């Protein structure tokens, strides 16, 4: 179980979210949106100086992340053929459903995530309504919310695994 990637899968998801967040911030600061009076809008991205360097660095990180992610999945699938991680299924890969104990732990973790969203979404909607937040930071907020769900899920499973 120690080398089971299904346990660390939420951390990989979080890393992916943080990479996307990097792109959002980069584009958010480098892009200019022009709204026209006759309808429609123009979207312009100017990559110069530091933005260009950052974009290249981000691309390297993405390639490195994807390579490492795919390698780890291949390693996991080879080691645990009964519990393969597949990108073609609709079900989240981090679910542990080996038997009724693991189903119960997964249920506990997903319940915590549900509770988190039940509170966090209305709070976030309220904050977005009341504060003048830019689109970039709104997206960053949503991404942080998404990362939070994986952290809660991971912590619950980790706590269980450490007691096994």
């Amino acid at each position, binding site marked *: *179980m120690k080398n089971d990637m299904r346990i660390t899968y939420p951390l990989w998801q979080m890393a992916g979210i943080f990479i996307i967040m990097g792109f959002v911030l980069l584009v958010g600061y480098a892009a200019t949106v022009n709204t026209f009076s006759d309808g429609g809008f123009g979207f312009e991205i100017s990559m110069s100086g530091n933005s260009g360097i950052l974009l290249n660095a981000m691309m390297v990180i993405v390639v490195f992340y994807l390579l490492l992610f795919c390698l780890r999945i291949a390693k996991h699938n080879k080691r645990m053929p009964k519990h393969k991680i597949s990108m073609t299924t609709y079900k989240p890969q981090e679910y542990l459903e*080996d*038997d*009724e*104990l*693991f189903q*119960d732990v997964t249920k506990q973790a997903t319940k915590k995530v549900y509770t988190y969203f039940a509170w966090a979404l209305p709070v976030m909607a309220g904050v977005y309504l009341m504060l003048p937040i830019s689109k970039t930071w709104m997206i960053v907020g949503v991404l942080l919310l998404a990362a939070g769900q994986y952290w809660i899920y991971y912590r619950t499973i980790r706590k269980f695994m450490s*007691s*096994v």
Partner: protein
Amino acid sequence: MLKNRLKELRARYSFTQIELAKQVGVTRQTIGFIEKGEFSPSVTLSLKLAKALDCDINEIFWLEGEEEHEE
């Protein structure tokens, strides 16, 4: 709360947690958690355990507070 004497009965048959787990089709961790009283198994699993240990389900599991009744 559900109490049990799974560990004691398992020892009677000299089963390891892994062996018993294999017999009833669960993981070793599940047997460990049941023995520690941290997980209440389903009726199906309880019946499988009773069958594997060749005893009645009431010999393995009982409700807290019913110890006096059992004794």
